């Protein structure tokens, strides 16, 4: 609660920066980074609802992302539907999958959920690689030429940038609303101690499933936006473990369970990733992922609360007092 208040004055500044960014940096390279950043922030914020607020650590969120990513191109490829029509189908399938995974595992401790998510994501990835209808290992393609607003296919990056920014704003607003409501209090109570939460009448399993459904919805949307924009999807870029890794690392780096944690995490990680890919010559050498692994281990070992928590601890008391009012 306090974080959102403390950072209120900065939100407008942040929003203004995000709005004018592509106009200032009109170079395709920078716009591409901007779009990548927004997409990463959307997926990590979506993960954050269940992984951060409710403390149910999914390490296989790529399953929802991948479903969201495949749906538009699958229906375009086979039935000629505009890719945008696949978005609601992706959402519906992701929600169904969320219930399917949440219902059995949320009866048990958090470890089971984590194991189940990674296993299911991997199962779907391998299966998709053998499924001819979904293009098997080769994947699927979208419309060859940009067609316009009616199916969200454009030639330049700019429209995508503002669409993604809009989705991110909606998601952050929903997260904020969740924080303020009973649902959000219940999520944090579950994270802090399930047994105690239950004794106070919190319907633990139902609340966790609802959180996973909400999280899956937006993760699926992120996947759809990705595949519609790139016009291509294959098992690795949809369901690959590194997709899940990125969501976890970005949310945890900024601060899991905080409203702006994922945004801050993406703000740091995406430029860093672009830089390392340039220095290390693409992701082929694995150095980027060594860095990812290292960051995750360091967060877990020294600062599980992420940068927000670190800031809370090291920020000079004077600064905080002047802003807390």
């Amino acid at each position, binding site marked *: 609660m306090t974080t959102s208040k403390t950072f209120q004055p900065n939100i407008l500044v942040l929003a203004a920066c995000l709005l004018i960014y592509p106009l200032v940096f009109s170079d395709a390279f920078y716009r591409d980074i901007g779009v990548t950043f927004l997409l990463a922030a959307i997926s990590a914020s979506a993960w954050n609802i269940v992984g951060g607020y409710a403390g149910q650590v999914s390490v296989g969120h790529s399953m929802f992302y991948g479903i969201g990513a495949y749906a538009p191109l699958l229906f375009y490829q086979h039935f000629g539907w505009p890719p945008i029509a696949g978005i609601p189908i992706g959402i519906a399938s992701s929600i169904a999958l969320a219930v399917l995974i949440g219902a059995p595992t949320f009866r048990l401790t958090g470890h089971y959920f984590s194991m189940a998510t990674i296993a299911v994501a991997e199962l779907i990835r391998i299966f998709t690689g053998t499924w001819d209808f979904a293009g098997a290992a080769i994947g699927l393609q979208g419309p060859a030429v940009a067609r316009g607003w009616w199916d969200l296919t454009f030639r330049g990056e700019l429209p995508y940038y503002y669409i993604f920014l809009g989705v991110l704003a909606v998601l952050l607003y929903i997260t904020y609303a969740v924080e303020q409501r*009973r649902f959000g*209090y219940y999520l944090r109570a579950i994270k802090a101690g399930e047994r105690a*939460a239950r*004794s*106070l009448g919190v319907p633990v399993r139902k609340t966790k499933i609802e959180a996973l459904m909400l999280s899956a919805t937006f993760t699926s949307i992120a996947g759809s936006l990705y595949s519609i924009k790139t016009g291509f999807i294959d098992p690795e870029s949809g369901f690959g473990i590194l997709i899940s890794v990125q969501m976890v690392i970005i949310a945890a780096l900024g601060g899991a369970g905080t409203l702006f944690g994922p945004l801050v995490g993406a703000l740091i990680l995406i430029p860093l990733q672009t830089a390392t890919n340039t220095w290390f010559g693409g992701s082929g050498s694995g150095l980027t992922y060594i860095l990812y692994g290292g960051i995750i281990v360091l967060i877990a070992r020294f600062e599980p609360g992420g940068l927000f928590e670190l800031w809370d601890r090291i920020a000079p008391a004077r600064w905080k007092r002047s802003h807390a009012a």
Partner: protein
Amino acid sequence: MLLEAQNVSKAFGDFHAVSGADLSVDEGDIIGLIGPNGAGKSTFFNCLAGDTMPSGGRITFAAHDVTTASPEAHARLGIGRTFQVPATFEDMTVLDNVMVGAFLRHAHRKDAREYARGIVELTGLNPVAHSRARSLGTPGRKRLEIARVLATNPRLMLLDESLAGLTPTELQEAIRLVRRIHEMGVTIVIVEHIMEVIMTLTRRVLVFNQGHVIASGRPEDVVRDETVITAYLGHGPRRHRSGT
């Protein structure tokens, strides 16, 4: 009759933690459960709270059969409990902790907040209302647990050694708080090692030993009971808890 436990048993494998315990609680009672460590009172207590499912017997609360009901259902029906080792939500503020309880009867944040503020005031937690629970000491946490349960508006409160580990002054304050809650019309069942608490607060005690209720009655009678003295006080009076 508010709560009635009949012939409640709980076995873990071959170990019979509770065998055939009975308890009936009237509205407005304040009852103590005592007994040496490992006597089964904590297990029995957890059966009442819905945390442990009895392997035999029947528990009814306000005409509902709650023998196999979930802890959530217990809370909804009006049975609140505290934990022997405080289970406060460490990263949340004291007020937010209490609000989680208050949300049970108040769906909207504004109402829950208002109600929680009243409870925080009542329990003397006002000065720390906006501190995180982790910054509190043991007395503060025990008090917060009581506040949180109180916010669920229970008819029956089960206190699991909520007064253990306090200094004499804190203990007196805590006794006053429990008495206050009782005067508000909340029925109380309390597990406690500290005889002072049992003697000053309760009207009736149940003494557990080796899974059985070996005596029950007014506290001043029970402490003079031969079987009780050998079973319980014979181990030497204990002022402070160590897990059962």
